[in-house]
């Protein structure tokens, strides 16, 4: 399993041709308490960098972009009742959706964890 990161603070972990997408610990901290999350439905086609999900804190709403293109195979329904999972476990139970990658080569344009950590360090 490999994990990749975007400059918009999404992560994607990939096993075979299926990826799981969420937002990073940095992102959940920046957003603050998550009070609402909207995940895409199974079957929805998403494109790299395109809107895929929504996450809202008390203060504001933010888009979650898909790190790569593909077809959604599942949304994390647990987030509807427990949006705080995104704060508690951003890289675990707080995942947003899974998708079947349509162009795995897009992963090459993403950062690995070390590169992402450097990127975040540069933002602070």
């Amino acid at each position, binding site marked *: 399993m490999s994990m990749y990161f975007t400059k918009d603070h999404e992560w994607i972990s990939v096993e075979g041709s299926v990826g799981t997408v969420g937002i990073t610990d940095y992102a959940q901290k920046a957003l*603050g308490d998550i009070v609402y999350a909207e995940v895409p439905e199974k079957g929805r086609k998403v494109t790299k960098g395109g809107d895929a999900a929504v996450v809202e804190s*008390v203060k504001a709403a933010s888009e979650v972009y898909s790190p790569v293109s593909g077809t959604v195979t599942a949304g994390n329904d647990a987030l509807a009742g427990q949006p705080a999972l995104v704060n508690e476990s951003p890289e675990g139970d707080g995942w947003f959706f899974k998708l079947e990658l349509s162009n795995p080569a897009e992963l090459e344009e993403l950062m690995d964890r070390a590169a992402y950590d450097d990127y975040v360090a540069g933002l602070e």
Partner: protein
Amino acid sequence: MSDTSLLTTPLDSLHRSLGAKMVPFAGYAMPVQYPLGVLGEHLHTRKSAGLFDVSHMGQALLEGDNVAALLETLVPGDIQGLGLGRTRYSVFTNDQGGILDDLMISKLSDNQLFLVVNAACKDADFAHIQAKIGGKVTLTILADRALLALQGPKAAAVMAKLAPGAETQKFMSIADYPVAGIPCRVTRSGYTGEDGYEISVDAANAEKLAQALLAEDGVAPIGLGARDSLRLEAGLCLYGSDIDTTTTPVEANLSWIIGKRRREQGGFPGAEAILGQLSAGAPRLRVGIKPDGRAPARAHTEITDVDGTPLGEITSGGFGPSADGPVAMGYVPRGFAVPGMPVKLVVRGKALDAHVALLPFVPHSYYKG
């Protein structure tokens, strides 16, 4: 992150030492939240006591013979009828009946009023006062004063310790007394729907006062993020969002601020339009809007009827931590301003179910002694 063009309040270094996240607001660097976070700060204020720095707001003295009558030429409130030591909420109106700003007016003596206006409007407000009545009254801008708000069910007990007697100060009254030994001007008022105080203090003593309040059990510093969610749940207007020059006090559902005598006599800017709406009814009204689902509807979200015909828009909206769900306010045609009326909110292209709701979303808990 630093922006040297931003003004700071006398509590700036305290905010930073408390770990606040500072953001630009109305030209000032202000704390939007502390490490507790917006949700925690909101809930803390509702169950205990929160300390807010609102020093960015404008404070001023207005003095002179007939000062109340003269200020009445700018606001629709009954200021001549304001009792000594009492505080009243009002608005500056323009000639069209629109709202230039909302403000608190307190009567210190027969010829002396204390005003508190919004930060973003203060320069314009003071220029407006000066231009309209400056020849007959003396306006003194109190730029060297800080303003702290202590809000929440434990506020009175905290004040009782630092200023014995403060616990029985009447709601919407003003008095000068020391708090923790520091000379202060205190109103029993606030912007959260909770019992509380707004404390004007010399800038040089502001940090000492804030430290004394924060040292008390149950007092936590609260940022602008929770200030906004608290006032939204309390159904209180935010100038620039819920009220502005395009909304009249009647449309904003603030008709209660127009004194009986003022309704009969007029004599304030926009009286013709405002009194006309009072008798004929305003075409639209500010109402509470409660989304039926969990998705918050933010400001500028379109409100439609159940068939999709546009009605108006959300002016403030978000998640209400105490309401435990999304809450909002907005304007709808008068015929739709009925609690329970179903409407739709267009959020990210989807029409979500909602209904018109009674304000406030969380009951006010003002001191009734």
